[in-house]
């Protein structure tokens, strides 16, 4: 649905970086690894939070 606010494992706040990550890597041209490094998301547990996320609000909202 919405991006998780924090990393499930360590608790770092990752939600605030989602929109930039999405623009630059998930839907953009840049290398996701380089973008994550640039955003300061270093640990594998936090990186998977963004890499594996999919926004579903647009998919769900018509059935509200």
């Amino acid at each position, binding site marked *: *649905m*919405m*991006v998780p*606010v*924090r990393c499930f494992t*360590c*608790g*770092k*706040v990752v*939600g*605030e970086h*989602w*929109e930039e990550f999405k623009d630059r890597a998930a839907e953009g041209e840049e290398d996701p690894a380089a973008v994550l490094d640039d955003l300061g998301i270093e*640990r594998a547990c936090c990186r998977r939070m963004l890499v594996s996320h999919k*926004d579903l*609000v*647009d998919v*769900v*909202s018509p059935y*509200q």
Partner: protein
Amino acid sequence: MSDFDVEFIDRGDREARFLVRDVTPAFANGVRRAMLADVPTMSIDAVRVVENSSVMFDEMIGLRLGLVPLTTPPGEFEIGDTVTLALDVQGPATAYSGDLVSSDGMVEPADENVPIIDLKEDQRLEVEADAVYDTGKEHAKHQGGVAIGYRNLQRAEVVGERDEFADDDPEIVRGVIEDDGELVPAEAFDNDLRNRYPDSEVRVEDVPNAFVFDVETDGSMSVEELVLAAVDTLYDRADELEEAVQL
């Protein structure tokens, strides 16, 4: 009160690495645990929903609001104190943590850009939330520290020439090494001792009772405030014990 020998390696507002000497492993772990479980922070705990026509249930919105870190100046609150915050966003828009309006200037969202919920046309989110001052022991959302750890300081010592026909395997070290009193983070030589000492044989051993702490906070307070508050809770506990065993 004894003094600790503390030396900073990296120092930032939210992330720092520092070396502490002459502490036992038990004490080092005590400080780590105190940083996670005993330092209280403000966090949204109860939510009164006025209107929620978004695609998420009230409970899910409540959970997300609870996880948003709120700035908490140390020493200003008692356990159980509450501060009220309000959020009112009309779609089409995204409700962000920065839209939270606080009744107390000291308690503000530490990060402004955390998306709470994406609102479509005619959807609205209006809530009133109570932030409570409590410890990480009560709920992980009250933890001020994130992924805090420590490891032994390692001493690197050149013991001779590298054997001409030695295996060409990497010699990986992590953390911080001490070389003749100089502190070198292992990332400086890409974690491989061969990069720093190309033609020497190096012996690496742990320095007893010297620990390098890696501390990161969620923004509710600075690293310095977190560490000092954690050490204070240890002193408080020792005092409590002393009082309890007195006749």
